[in-house]
């Protein structure tokens, strides 16, 4: 197996693995059960997406995708901060979500 082939192979594997991670993370967003859980999962989704983008970048040779990954990191951070702030301000968990 040449290095290039190995890379191809591992990229494909990685895409599969990352897809699985995506689905699991999404599952947590859907399941909850609390808002912090969902936000955490969303944050995680960003992380997985960054990895996904990196893999895609290598796979297609368009390394320019990196910048998108970085920007995604930035706004992902912002989203989490905003949600944290939101949770902090609200102070009480919505009843439905505790159940």
């Amino acid at each position: 197996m040449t290095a290039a082939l190995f890379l191809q192979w591992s990229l494909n594997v990685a895409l599969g693995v990352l897809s699985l991670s995506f689905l699991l993370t999404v599952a947590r967003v859907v399941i909850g059960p609390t808002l912090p859980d969902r936000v955490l999962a969303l944050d995680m989704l960003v992380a997985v997406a960054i990895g996904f983008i990196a893999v895609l970048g290598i796979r297609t040779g368009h390394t320019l995708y990196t910048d998108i990954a970085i920007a995604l990191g930035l706004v992902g951070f912002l989203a989490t901060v905003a949600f944290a702030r939101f949770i902090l301000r609200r102070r009480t968990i919505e009843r439905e979500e505790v159940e």
Partner: protein
Amino acid sequence: MRTLIFRTIAPALTSLMLLFSVFVLLRGHNDPGGGFIGGLIAVAAIAIYGIAFGVPSVRRALYFHPLAISGAGLLLAAASGLLSFVQGVPFLTGIWASFYFLGAEIDVSTVMSFDIGVYLVVLGSLSSVALALEDREDG
């Protein structure tokens, strides 16, 4: 938000993100990016700063009223298009000039100033929105 950890790191993050936003703005012509995305990143930077230190700090930091920035951006963008009147070409025709500075060729163009206009509009409008919403919260 009054947490030491966040407040300590926020100024650096903000500066970094602003820098990144300009980077994205300037290279949009060749790679993904451009005024709009750059503006969004800048807004994200400002939002982080605002969440950390509150609305008044952001207003002071921006110096101009955000909507005035937005208006200026639109003026810049439209004016970039109007420059072509002088050249006898239609509205919004890209006009390019390049000069040498310290041995490097620097291109300037109305297309670039147009994109900077876009950047300013996005930056101004969205930060105005965010600030107004937050103002409401505090007051």
